[in-house]
Structures are given as C-alpha cells and as structure tokens.
C-alpha cells in the first residue's frame, strides 16, 4: 500500500497508523516520523508557512515512496506533507512505514524523512514573534544525511539527479 498526500489540512497520526496497518497484511513492524512546527524560548515563532511547487510535489513524493518500498522491502508506506500556514505544535510532515521486521520499517522511515528534507520542493518561512518573516535556510547536515543513502548496494536505484547550484 502506497499513500502520498500533499495537503493543507492537518493529518491524523493515529488514523494513518490504523490505515497503513490495515492495508499491509502480515506487517509486524510499523514506524513513523512526524515533523512538527517548533518554537522555543530562544527563538519564538508565531507560525510557519510552507510554500511548495504544486506541479512537482505529488509526483516527486510518489517516486520516492515507491523507491523506499523497493529498497527496504516495505509492505507499504504513507507520506503526507502539508503546505500553507501552520501554528507551533502542528504536524508538517508524516511518514509511516510498514514491514515484516523492524529494521526495514526504521530504515525506510529515516530514508524518507532524509530525502524529504533535501529533495522535496517545499520552502519554509518562519513568522517570528518579533514580527520578522524569515525564510529557513537549508542545512548542510541535511544534505549529508540524505547523501548517506547514496552509498551502498542500492545507490544505482536513485530515482533522479540532485539539483546542483547554478
């Protein structure tokens, strides 16, 4: 089972767990990851706005979800990425994977979120409590995390080139 959604609406973590479990007969392990709008005392924000590239997002997410299933032998996975303006504590992105055994579910989840951080066409703008609006800058650490999946026996399965700076 493959479920990929790009939506403005919130997602239901428990409901998506049930849905994937019910769609994956024989599953023994489900893992998930939720990225949440973060605000802290050092850098309070009032909201986060996610912009995306509508024509590209859905297809790109479907490709990578299919790739994760193949690479890790998943029984299924769900990827939901929101866009629009979100308040602190709201979920931005949800990844759920189902597998026979735990390692595949855990690895599939890490792979998907690493990929989403570096290769999904979304851009975050923070609305700071002091009134400033700031585009979030890409982190070199994210590129490194995504890069680790390009080593090893499956590197030839990568679906596409990474964008180079121009």
């Amino acid at each position, binding site marked *: 089972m493959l479920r990929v959604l790009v939506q403005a609406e919130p997602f239901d973590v428990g409901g998506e767990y049930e849905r994937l479990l019910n769609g994956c007969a024989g599953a023994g392990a489900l893992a998930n990851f939720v*990225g949440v709008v973060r605000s802290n005392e050092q850098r309070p924000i009032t909201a986060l706005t*996610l*912009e*995306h*590239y509508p*024509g*590209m997002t859905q*297809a*790109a997410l479907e490709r990578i979800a299919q790739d994760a299933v193949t690479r890790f032998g998943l029984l299924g996975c769900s990827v939901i*990425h929101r866009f629009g303006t979100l308040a602190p504590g709201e979920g*931005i*992105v949800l990844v759920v994977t189902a597998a026979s055994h735990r390692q595949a579910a855990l690895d599939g989840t890490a792979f998907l*979120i690493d990929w*989403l*951080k*570096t*290769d*999904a*066409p*979304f*851009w*975050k*703008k923070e609305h700071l409590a002091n009134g400033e609006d700031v*585009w*979030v*800058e*890409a982190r070199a650490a*994210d590129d490194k995390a995504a890069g680790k999946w390009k080593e090893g026996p499956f590197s030839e399965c990568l679906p*596409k*080139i*990474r*964008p*180079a*700076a*121009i």
Partner: protein
Amino acid sequence: MPSSCSHLPRMQQKPVTILYFAWLRERTGVAEESLVLPDGVRTVGGLRTLLSARSPRHREAFAAPGLVRAAVNQVFATQDMPVAPGDEVAFFPPVTGG
C-alpha cells in the same frame, strides 16, 4: 513547403514558462511569467542570465546571496541542462521541506 519547429518565426514558437518560488518569487515580484527563447539561449544557465537582465528586481533577486536551484519540467536540473520551447523552468532556493 513544410518547415520544422526550429525554423518557425519566433512569434509562433511556444513560449517557456518560468516559475519562481520562496524568496526568488518575493524578490522578483513574479510567481510566473513566460517568454519566447531568443536564439542562443538553450540551457538553464543561459536562461538565468537572460532573466537577470529582465528588470532591476530580477537582477537583484538572482544576484542575492544564497544558492539558486532549478527544475526543468518538474525535474531538478543543473545549469548546463537544455531548455526547449514549451518547457516549464522553475527557479528557487535550496529546498527546506520535511
């Protein structure tokens, strides 16, 4: 006498659609525009140079500090990749989703 696409007058060539996202959209002041590729502009890098000269805001946006990346027809692209009439070309900063 039939003529191939590349020999059509410029007016009849399909334009290229240009999209801007995030701070490139804000700085150019444009989310989407289109233009007919002039002779000699056939790559992402060439198109970027052309667009930089389109207005002071375009120039400023492309000259701003920070990397600019691109996609051609919804696939990430490097500057040496070809652009053809009818393509959709997007310019944006490094992605920050997830």
